[in-house]
């Protein structure tokens, strides 16, 4: 069953509201520097096989991270995000020993769940580099004519990242990062794409 993009927007609104409530309730008790909760909006650009299936920028992306500082300039944590690639096309598509033509809706839902480590430069943690490693869940769907073809797969992947952060309020930072996601081949499919992450850390 297809779900409209409004579900994605409702998810963003619910997450932002939950974060705002959590931030307001926990503000007085925060211990600065012990951990960051990061919420990001993501714009993604496909590469390689991902680009072969959908050569369009994704403006549907959201991420949530937890980073715990084990040293003043080193954190470890978890990264969960959700990127959606979509394209509607009517190009003729080659298939083994043939071709198919018709209006096509192509969708990729990608859910990375990564363990992360980051290193921060300077006392203000303005610039950082990091890497994530873990599982990627891929849901791929092709709607053509009156028919739907779908497939799901799990992959192992890596996600190096660079970013900057800047304090904008009490225990609140703006975050801007560039992340490259590469999920190794599984079931004849691999994933790679770039993501620009814009968000806040608390």
């Amino acid at each position: 069953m297809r779900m409209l993009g409004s579900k994605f927007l409702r998810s963003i609104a619910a997450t932002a509201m939950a974060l705002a409530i959590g931030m307001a309730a926990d503000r007085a008790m925060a211990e600065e520097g012990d951990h960051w909760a990061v919420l990001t909006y993501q714009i993604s650009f496909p590469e390689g096989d991902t680009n072969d299936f959908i050569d369009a920028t994704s403006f549907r992306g959201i991420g949530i991270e937890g980073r715990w500082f084990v040293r003043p300039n080193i954190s470890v944590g978890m990264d969960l995000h959700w990127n959606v690639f979509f394209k509607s096309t009517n190009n003729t598509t080659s298939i083994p020993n043939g071709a198919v033509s018709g209006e096509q809706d192509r969708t990729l839902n990608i859910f990375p769940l990564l363990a992360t480590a980051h290193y921060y430069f300077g006392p203000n943690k303005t610039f950082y580099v990091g890497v994530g490693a873990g599982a990627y869940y891929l849901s791929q769907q092709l709607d053509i004519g009156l028919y739907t073809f779908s497939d799901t797969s799990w992959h192992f992947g890596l996600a190096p990242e660079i970013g900057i952060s800047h304090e904008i309020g009490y225990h609140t930072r703006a975050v801007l990062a560039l992340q490259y996601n590469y999920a190794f081949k599984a079931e004849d499919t691999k994933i790679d794409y770039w993501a620009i992450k814009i968000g806040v850390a608390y």
Partner: protein
Amino acid sequence: MNTERTCLGHARKAARWGALIVGLLPAVAGCYPYNSDKSTSDYDIAMTQFDSKADFFPAPPPNTTYFLPNTVEHIVPPGTTDTIPTTYDSLILSLVADNMDNRQYQRDSGLTIQPTTNFIVSVYVTSSTYYGYTYWGGWWGYGCYCYGGYYPYMDPYSFTTGTIFITMADQSQVDNANKTAPMIWGCAINGLMYSGQTSSRITNQINQCFNQSPYLGP
């Protein structure tokens, strides 16, 4: 007191993380955008398959010949009445013949297959009807007297699809003993059946089948 502050702080942080995870739960189901601005013809598809080892021009053009019958075969389940309209049969046959002729194939003029005929082209048509329903849950309505409320109900629907098959067999590979004729090229066109624009849709899709088969000739 410090212990109490730490415990309460951890509890609030845990609640915040829990709220964030709950907020992302709808994401687990996935997002499947789709192009909602579609007309009936946007659901038409044309698929072709071919034998990569086949020789589509055993004789230099225009000396490669083909046989095309004067009728379209209607495929219906055994024991059922053929209700597929014949309105478009002549259009389908003329489109196939025109596309073959434009690719420098020569049609045998006889009513039967000649021993010298290279390819046998056949056309089949079938249709299927699908039934379903949409369930709408009820609603209590406004206020104490449930203004605007309604009971749950089901909204049935049905739609019919049509499929045109065009096949090409190599007569030199026909197995008369087993009554088989390997298909070296096939085309399937599928779409919704409704009363408007059918002629133009059939024309576009049959032409598309040949256009996406460059091995049949320019």
